[in-house]
């Protein structure tokens, strides 16, 4: 057998064991591997004696019994004792009646291959982790809007995917380093700001990463490595790449903030023009920019006098966001003011705006609700170009959407030959709400559902003071919303004809006040007797107010305010309030004061004294007859 080359020269080591386990045959290949002579082996050595120590024990305790039971072994990794150390082999064996046949294949190459494979896998994993860290960080940086948000993203990544124990970030503002924040386990207070190096460097066991932008350096990130067992060391290459990405993100953030602040300023400057004060109406507004993106949108509200006694109300929405939308909004807003005028009216105003929008593409498809209120009569004329309908809130508590006067958005290809308008008459105390769709429109519900919610929310605020009403309404409707869209709300209250007067407590103007009030009452339709009685009652109230409110303080003032209310199906009623800042003593305390109150109470239909803030006396009397 030993002379057969297929046996002797086989590329594997071959061995024949006798029934007692000693070698009875061995081929040349195996002799060469083990550095032994055939005579030393045959009939003398057992297989285990050819193995290195570990393998020998393994053979005796485990493999030999297994072979006995199973009858075979397959590809067991073992090591041979070789002249120059140990040789890894794979052993296979088969038992037969006369003994055991054993084949050993050289596993040296395979072992080194496996080691290489392992190393390659580790390298690939490391590279994968680096790539992932870099990608995660880059994604976080690109999501961050604004310098502060980029700074937060850098710190989050540093103690997150980048594996630092503590991270400290300085950002450069106007050439000076400013500590942005410290993040991490140790929460140490930051030292002095380090000068950003040219490239990522190790300084005193910490890693200092410069944040270079394209033109300037935006700051530096100092990282303290984790010292717990098994922690990966900080990866300088990845950190350097993150530093570059952060630098670019800060470039973008600075550019963005500049543009956003210009747009914000533009919008604010346009929104902050208050309507002229007039006792006959009040306007309260809310402008809530879409906070999520920090970007301004094209929503606006406006209120201005078209001519004396006619107030224009506008809420509009230019499509898009950012500087372009804000500036288009500004142009359109100015155009509305320029086009509106005596005799134009809502319908023709919209037609003229179509022509304007044709010249300003950024304002195309803008929507607009426009209304003109006659402050004397309460007649409201309105038109909507693709905009949500105005909401009429009656003083009586009824709420109604004004669905007439509708046409397409401004500057659309499809547009009506003539824009339409509609009108409704307000009663004193009625309110009108104009808003952009961000107030009630949500992707998750239909438009009608949104409008129903708007009506319900509006109905709940009918009796609240105007400013509180508009704030409460907006808050309740935006509870479910995370500030995705701009929201513009304008709430108007028409009080009708109002008489307002302020006089000093020395009462030098008392006579004149009576004359003016009487003239106003007659103008409002009061008969001579009613007017005289109301003037007398008011004069008494003023005299009382001057006496306590202005006690020892002649320059203190008494405020008089009168308005007409026209409840449905009832005679019109005059409501007069007299307010001072003092506190009344009980009327019985002084005979004359008691007499004054006695006179008042006999002259008016209702008398209320409110002492919650100063003292306000409210007189109510019907004048004239029901307007049947």
């Amino acid at each position, binding site marked *: 057998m030993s002379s057969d080359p297929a046996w002797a020269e086989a590329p594997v080591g071959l061995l024949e064991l006798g029934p007692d386990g000693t070698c009875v045959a061995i081929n040349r290949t195996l002799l060469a591997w083990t550095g032994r002579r055939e005579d030393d082996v045959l009939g003398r050595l057992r297989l285990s004696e050819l193995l290195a120590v570990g393998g020998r024990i393994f053979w005796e305790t485990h493999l030999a019994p297994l072979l006995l039971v199973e009858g075979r072994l397959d590809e067991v990794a073992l090591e041979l004792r070789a002249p120059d150390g140990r040789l890894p082999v794979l052993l296979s064996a088969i038992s037969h009646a006369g003994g055991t046949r054993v084949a050993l294949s050289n596993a040296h190459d395979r072992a080194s291959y496996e080691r290489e494979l392992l190393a390659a896998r580790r390298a690939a994993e490391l590279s994968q982790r680096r790539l992932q860290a870099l990608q995660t960080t880059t994604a976080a940086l690109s999501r961050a809007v604004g310098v502060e948000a980029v700074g937060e993203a850098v710190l989050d990544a540093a103690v997150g995917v980048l594996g630092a124990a503590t991270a400290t970030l300085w950002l450069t503002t106007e050439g000076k380093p400013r500590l942005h924040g410290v993040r991490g386990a140790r929460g140490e207070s930051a030292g002095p700001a380090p000068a950003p190096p040219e490239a990522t460097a190790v300084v005193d066991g910490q890693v200092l990463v410069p944040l270079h932008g394209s033109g300037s350096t935006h700051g530096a990130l100092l990282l303290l490595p984790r010292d717990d067992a098994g922690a990966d060391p900080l990866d300088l290459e990845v950190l350097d790449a993150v530093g570059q990405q952060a630098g670019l993100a800060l470039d973008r953030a600075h550019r963005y903030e500049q543009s956003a602040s210009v747009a914000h300023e533009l919008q604010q400057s346009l929104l902050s023009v208050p309507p002229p004060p007039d006792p006959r109406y009040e306007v309260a507004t809310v402008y809530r920019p879409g906070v999520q993106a920090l970007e301004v949108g094209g929503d606006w509200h406006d209120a201005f006098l078209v001519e004396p006694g006619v107030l224009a109300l506008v809420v509009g929405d230019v499509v898009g966001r950012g500087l372009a939308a804000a500036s288009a909004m500004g142009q359109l807003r100015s155009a509305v003011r320029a086009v509106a005028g005596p005799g134009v009216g809502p319908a023709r105003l919209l037609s003229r705006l179509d022509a304007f929008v044709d010249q300003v593409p950024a304002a195309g498809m803008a929507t607009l609700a426009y209304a003109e209120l006659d402050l004397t009569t309460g007649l409201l004329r309105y038109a909507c170009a693709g905009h949500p309908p105005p909401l009429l809130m009656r003083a009586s508590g009824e709420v109604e959407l004004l669905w007439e006067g509708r046409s397409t958005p401004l500057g659309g290809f499809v547009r009506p030959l003539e824009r339409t308008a509609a009108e409704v008459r307000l009663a004193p105390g009625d309110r009108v709400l104009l808003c952009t769709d961000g107030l009630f429109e949500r992707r998750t519900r239909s438009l009608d559902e949104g409008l129903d919610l708007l009506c319900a929310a509006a109905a709940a605020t009918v009796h609240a003071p105007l400013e509180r009403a508009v704030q409460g309404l907006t808050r309740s409707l935006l509870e479910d919303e995370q500030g995705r869209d701009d929201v513009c709300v304008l709430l108007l209250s028409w009080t009708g004809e109002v008489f307002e007067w302020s006089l000093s407590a*020395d*009462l*030098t103007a*008392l*006579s004149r006040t*009576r004359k003016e009030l009487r003239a106003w009452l007659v103008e409002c339709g009061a008969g001579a007797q009613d007017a*005289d009685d109301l003037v*007398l009652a008011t*004069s*008494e109230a*003023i*005299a009382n107010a*001057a*006496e306590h409110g202005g006690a020892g303080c002649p320059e203190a003032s008494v405020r008089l305010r009168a308005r007409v209310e026209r409840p449905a199906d009832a005679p019109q009623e005059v409501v007069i309030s007299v307010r001072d800042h003092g506190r009344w003593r009980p009327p019985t305390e002084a*005979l*004359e004061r008691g*007499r*004054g109150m*006695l*006179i008042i109470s*006999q*002259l008016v239909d209702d008398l209320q004294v409110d002492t919650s803030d100063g003292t306000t006396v409210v007189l109510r009397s019907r004048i004239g007859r029901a307007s049947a």
Partner: protein
Amino acid sequence: MSLEVLADRADGVRVLRVDGELDAAVAPALLEAVPSYVAGAGGVVLDLSEVTFFDSAGCRLVDALARTAAGAEVVLRVVAPPGCRARRVLELTGLAEPLVDDELAVAVAAAAR
């Protein structure tokens, strides 16, 4: 507003004639002068026929005159024809019934007693 003190009549009755607006702005000055309006008179008549405005401050004046006159044991009468501004307020405050006459002559006759 003005308050004119006419010369005492032969029967000792003194007539005080007020015109214009008698209100809280002017009443304090008149109240201070009340003793002088009554002093030395044999009876006092306050003529409010020409008053264009009258309120509780006017009532105070009437009240003060009545009190002072009673102290001096002379009679005070007030002239306020029906329909005039003062009459309405005096009626509302219950002063009309004991003090007010419709015409000056009636008041003077009553004050002379």
